């Protein structure tokens, strides 16, 4: 087969080819390094472009955006420019209050909720990880009481402003009034929409809009940040956009899944846990209580997905990349999965589901469990897979064309709801444009928060394997090589781990031969770190890295033998 044309590559990148054609291209890609490199490059360019063209003006900008639009509409009407808006603006005063209500608090609460809820999951699954704890500690100051207070404003305003002036006639005035009112929520006449955290925690809004009191004593003892997460989880605003929702669906379920995190104990009582989990999920999907208290006639309840997705975007989430990377791939997915997660031998999930970043199921993905031997299955049409005998400590690799490989070491707390990221995607965890050195997303599961460094890079392919990469990637490679040199000079485990981290960053950006090299350098650095200062932690990371390498490296790659030998050294078993 000839090389893929630019158009074919472009369509492949966009996942826009008919299945028949796609299979042929996949087959070609499997054999053609040049085309793989082109695809990776195109993917990286798209990712860079997406970032470069994205600008978040911040919550403040959107807080009164709707008001400004309303004002403009009003002016236009006065101008009588012929675009007669359909709405008979002067009547419907109640509606206009709603229209003018300040969404600041909602927006803020929403961002916060998504962040905290996600962090909550991370906490549950990795509570022993100091980093997550610190991430949570960082996260908690961000959410403000104001966000919660303000979220209550809508309902109060609705009642209190029944005779408020119409938007069209006095937008500025209303804005001022709104500003004044928002902080003073606590003194507003409606006691049902309070700044009272406790009150809010006790009310749960069901998807059908009913509010029910709820027993939350278990959470009562939880840490402040967790409380906030729980609270704001209910109160998330619907500032989301459908697009964000589509795009960030992978984040939304994470929020769903994390809702139970604060509420569930360890693995003690599966049945109860499941029940709580279910109800918590309902909560996450329920509309904000404050909004429900006095819903405007036209506003339907808002789906949780809309909140968390929108709020998960942008800077705030970027700042919490650490937490996210830990959570990535660990979101619970559906009831069935949750059931599976809870019911298995040794509490290790046996079945899971693979989705892409948009939340679509990924069928035909190759799922490989590696420990003593290799067990490979493919996801079915629903993206589901089951692996019999999956045990804690196994390494699970999920791969599919067009996606970064995803590797995770199975633990009792591992959720097998896997989210695959597109190849070379420069997401929040990416490094090329962020300038941050973070582990590759695909390795986040295996590597954890800190990674190791390559050592036997002398064995690596020729240095110009990165020649075709963008300058950003080449810079990363230079950094990684520098770190490696330093580590070799100093001979410290920490140095090699730093180097490994750098290589992981490279790994996140490349595909094909460069990825093989970076992966090898990464394993090599981890091995050096482990040899200098063997710890269980390092061994675990090294094992995962070796597994991933062996799972991904082409059979013809010379380094395979080396890594296989390392594996044999490590486990005393025969390396594969």
């Amino acid at each position, binding site marked *: 087969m000839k090389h893929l*044309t630019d158009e074919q590559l472009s369509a492949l990148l966009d996942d826009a080819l008919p299945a028949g054609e796609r299979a042929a291209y996949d087959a070609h890609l*499997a054999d053609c390094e040049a085309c793989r490199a082109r695809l990776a490059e195109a993917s990286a360019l798209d990712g860079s*472009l997406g970032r470069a063209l994205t600008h978040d003006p911040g919550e403040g900008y959107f807080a009164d955006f*709707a008001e400004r639009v309303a004002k403009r509409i009003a002016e236009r009407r006065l101008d009588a420019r012929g675009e007669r808006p*359909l*709405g008979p603006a002067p009547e419907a005063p109640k509606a206009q209050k709603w229209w*003018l209500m300040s969404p600041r608090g909602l927006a803020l609460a929403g961002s916060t909720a998504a962040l905290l809820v996600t962090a909550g999951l991370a906490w549950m699954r990795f509570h022993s990880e100091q980093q997550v704890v610190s991430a949570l500690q960082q996260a908690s100051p961000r959410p403000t009481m104001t966000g919660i207070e303000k979220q209550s404003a809508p309902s109060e305003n609705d009642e209190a402003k029944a005779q408020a002036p119409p938007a069209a006639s006095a937008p500025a005035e209303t804005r001022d009034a709104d500003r004044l009112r928002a902080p003073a929520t606590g003194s507003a006449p409606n006691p049902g929409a309070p700044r009272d955290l406790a009150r809010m925690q006790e009310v749960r809004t069901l998807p059908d809009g009913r509010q029910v009191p709820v027993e939350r004593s278990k959470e009562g003892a939880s840490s402040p940040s967790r409380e906030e997460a729980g609270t704001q989880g209910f109160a998330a605003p619907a500032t989301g956009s*459908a697009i964000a929702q589509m795009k960030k669906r992978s984040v939304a379920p994470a929020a769903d899944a994390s809702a139970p995190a604060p509420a569930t104990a360890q693995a003690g009582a599966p049945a109860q846990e499941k029940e709580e989990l279910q109800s918590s999920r309902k909560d996450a999907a329920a509309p904000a209580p404050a909004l429900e208290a006095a819903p405007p006639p036209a506003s339907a309840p808002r789906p949780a997905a809309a909140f968390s997705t929108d709020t998960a975007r942008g800077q705030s989430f970027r700042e919490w990349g650490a937490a996210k990377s830990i959570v990535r791939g660990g979101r619970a997915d559906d009831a069935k999965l949750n059931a599976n997660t809870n019911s298995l031998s040794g509490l290790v999930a046996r079945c899971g589901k693979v989705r892409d970043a*948009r939340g679509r199921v990924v069928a035909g993905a190759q799922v490989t469990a590696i420990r003593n031997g290799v067990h490979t299955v493919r996801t079915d049409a629903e993206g589901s897979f089951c692996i019999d005998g999956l045990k804690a400590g196994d390494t699970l690799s999920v791969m599919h064309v067009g996606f970064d490989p995803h590797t995770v070491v199975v633990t009792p707390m591992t959720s097998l709801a896997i989210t695959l990221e597109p190849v070379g995607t420069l997401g929040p965890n990416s490094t090329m444009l962020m300038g941050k050195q973070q582990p590759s997303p695909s390795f986040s599961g295996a590597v954890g928060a800190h990674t190791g460094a390559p050592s036997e890079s002398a064995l690596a392919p020729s240095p110009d394997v990165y020649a075709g990469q963008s300058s950003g990637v080449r810079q990363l490679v230079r950094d990684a090589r520098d770190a490696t040199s330093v580590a070799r000079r100093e001979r410290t485990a920490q140095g090699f781990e730093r180097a490994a981290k750098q290589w992981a960053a490279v790994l996140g950006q490349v595909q094909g031969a460069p990825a093989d090299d970076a992966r090898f350098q990464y394993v090599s650095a981890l091995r050096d770190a482990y040899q200098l200062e063997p710890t269980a932690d390092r061994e675990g990371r090294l094992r995962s890295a070796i597994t991933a390498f062996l799972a991904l490296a082409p059979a013809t790659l010379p380094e395979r033998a080396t890594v296989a030998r390392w594996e044999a050294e490590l486990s005393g078993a025969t390396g594969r």
Partner: protein
Amino acid sequence: MTLCFPRGSLPGMNPPAVRTSDAHPEDVALVAASQKGDQAAFGELVRRYQRAVHRLAWSLTRNDSDADDLAQETFVRAWGAIGRFELGQPLYPWLARIVTNQAFSLFRRRKRRPETSIEPLVEAGQQWGVEDDPAEHTADAERDARLRACFGELAPEHQAVLALRAVQDLSYDEIANVLSIPIGTVMSRLSRARGELKRRLAERSGEIT
């Protein structure tokens, strides 16, 4: 298993079909109410879509004031035309169409004024967290600015198709819907746009390094 790209057909194939027909039930209710003149409902729609609309507007204008104007104007026009919106259709592609149409006319008015390099640099720098290394910011910001500048040199229709794909992550179906062009054209235009962007980027990098 030797493949970085294992074989197998991708499931998410033609995701657009699913997504385009996926009008949010809440949106449908809000649109219906808006069509009856309920400004509250429309206000809610604004809040739901303001970010997506602004994001697209910003990617097509790459400056705050134009993006703000474009985004606001989009909703003003949407309000004016909401009566003609076909209920049950997803709202965003329709809004995106308004954004791109306006951006096109802005392009025409300005004759594709070349990008300034200072402003994006500063803006990009502001996006990084305080804990980040300033030197890295500069390098990142430069890369972003270069990318934006090259993007700004592309033909408007190429910019639009790339922005809808790379920034908004719309499917081909959705892009076809937004731009009112056949899917085949989306495919070829995207490919050309990417090629052109890559070429310009290479040229520019050559100049710089």
